[in-house]
């Protein structure tokens, strides 16, 4: 990307996460946005681009812009599930490189836990959903369970290997005072938790929480005024393979096989260059399929990769260092929290908390997954 105007994350913040009945999807985004801009030392009037995803408004970007009193000249409501925010970051970077914008605000908010909206009846099936919904697949967990069983069948993988992902995430969560679940768990705890959709147990599933987040992206011209260490966006890729799990071409290969190499090629980095991974962990199987599709291990070998402790605290490829969607928080579309954590790690924000800080972290890969393994978006971030 040399020669083009560079873009960096200059501010990040989350609202309260967990159960927040006193907040709305709008107030969560407002609080996170104020905190992220304040951290960067930027004012609301500096923001000229707004990136929002969600289904809480017929046009979330318009609703939020009005609520915040912003009049952005560049709007992006790309809505590809939990991977939306890595896509937003890629789009914001492209717009900054092209000289269209200087400062972008990316936000998310959710009250799914307080509203109990996760289990609320959905509107009648329309269009393509009429070929899935009548069969009673519990969504989204059932779709991931279909992928897990196919993965087991092809590679002889086991529930123990899935469970190792949850155990690794919980080890990181124990180091994060803001994580919703911090008590240590074992593989047996995961396998002993209630079966939800075979072979996925309760502890193979992400949390259901409220929460919100914001990420501020700025052009390099602005970096000298910024109060934080800029974290540069070095590469980005995104794709989709399907919408319904029934139409996924191969249940063991995700769009990460396209978006990952695209992002790494743009960034000019290889797997060995990366210091940490923030990988969307909606379910334990999501992580194993993603590690393989990204090329960190061969098909069928991600379980062993995790079991050896390589992704846990002290491992050579630290992953989901805040405890992830499995143990930290998961307000429905988790992708913005991946960006927040990667940014903090690359700024060395946890330097005074050595077990949590990935020592000397310079390069991170952040990977979002949306829908039912339907969309992926990958970014490579570097400490500038």
């Amino acid at each position, binding site marked *: 990307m040399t020669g083009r105007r560079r873009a960096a994350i200059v501010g990040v913040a989350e609202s309260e996460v967990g159960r927040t009945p006193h907040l709305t999807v709008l107030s969560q985004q407002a609080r996170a946005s104020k905190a992220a801009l304040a951290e960067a030392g930027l004012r609301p009037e500096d923001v000229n681009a707004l990136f929002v995803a969600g289904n809480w408004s017929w046009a979330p970007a318009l609703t939020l812009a009005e609520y915040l009193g912003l009049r952005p000249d560049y709007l992006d409501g790309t809505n590809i599930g939990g991977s939306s925010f890595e896509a937003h970051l890629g789009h914001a970077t492209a717009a900054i490189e092209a000289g269209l914008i200087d400062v972008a605000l990316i936000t998310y908010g959710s009250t799914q836990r307080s509203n109990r909206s996760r289990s609320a009846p959905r509107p*009648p099936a*329309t269009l393509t*959903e009429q070929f899935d919904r*009548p*069969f*009673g*697949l519990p969504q989204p967990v*059932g779709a991931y369970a279909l992928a897990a069983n196919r993965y087991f069948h092809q590679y002889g993988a086991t529930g123990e290997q899935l469970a190792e992902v949850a155990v690794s995430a919980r080890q990181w969560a124990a180091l994060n005072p803001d994580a919703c679940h911090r008590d240590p768990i074992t593989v047996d705890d995961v396998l002993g938790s209630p079966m939800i*959709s075979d072979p996925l147990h309760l502890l193979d599933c992400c949390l259901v929480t409220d929460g919100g987040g914001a990420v501020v992206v700025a052009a390099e011209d602005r970096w000298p005024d910024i109060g934080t260490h800029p974290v540069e966006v070095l590469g980005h890729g995104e794709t989709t393979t399907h919408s319904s799990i*029934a139409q996924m071409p191969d249940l063991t290969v995700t769009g990460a096989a396209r978006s990952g190499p695209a992002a790494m090629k743009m960034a000019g980095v290889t797997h060995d260059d990366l210091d940490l991974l923030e990988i969307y962990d909606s379910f334990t199987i999501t992580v194993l399929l993603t590690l393989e599709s990204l090329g960190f291990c061969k098909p069928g070998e991600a379980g062993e990769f995790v079991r050896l402790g390589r992704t846990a605290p002290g491992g050579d490829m630290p992953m989901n260092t805040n405890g992830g969607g499995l143990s930290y928080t998961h307000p429905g579309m988790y992708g913005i929290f991946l960006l927040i954590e990667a940014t903090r790690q690359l700024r060395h924000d946890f330097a005074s908390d050595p077990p949590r800080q990935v020592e000397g972290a310079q390069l991170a890969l952040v990977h979002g997954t949306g829908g039912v393994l339907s969309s992926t978006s990958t970014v490579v971030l570097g400490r500038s």
Partner: protein
Amino acid sequence: MGDLVPDAETRPFWDGIAAGELRLQRCEDCERAVFYPRALCPHCFGDRLDWVTSPGTGTVYSYTVAHRAFGPSAGDPPYTVALIDLDEGVRMMSRIVGGATVRIGDRVELEITRLGGEESPALPCFRVKESA
């Protein structure tokens, strides 16, 4: 089972199920089967699509046994939802009926069933014909 809302494009399929037949589209340009019904062939973008009746035989690509059910189409768990690769080369989501233990690779055959009782719509479900 309030989740079946046929539209102008899909009504021939659901009318077929109600009449006891699994009807698929077939592209006259590339001669490949198309499921679910649509206006353009997703393989070649052709728009000449015919309806043909499928024998309703296929293979289990994957499955899950749902132990918790949520939403209006939830049945009484546990029950088995599967992805079926029809012999025509298309994949569909369905329910396995008939009580047999299911494994990936099992051969299955169509059994049109009203999962929610007589008042509910007929759905293309499958029964295990031959275990893998």
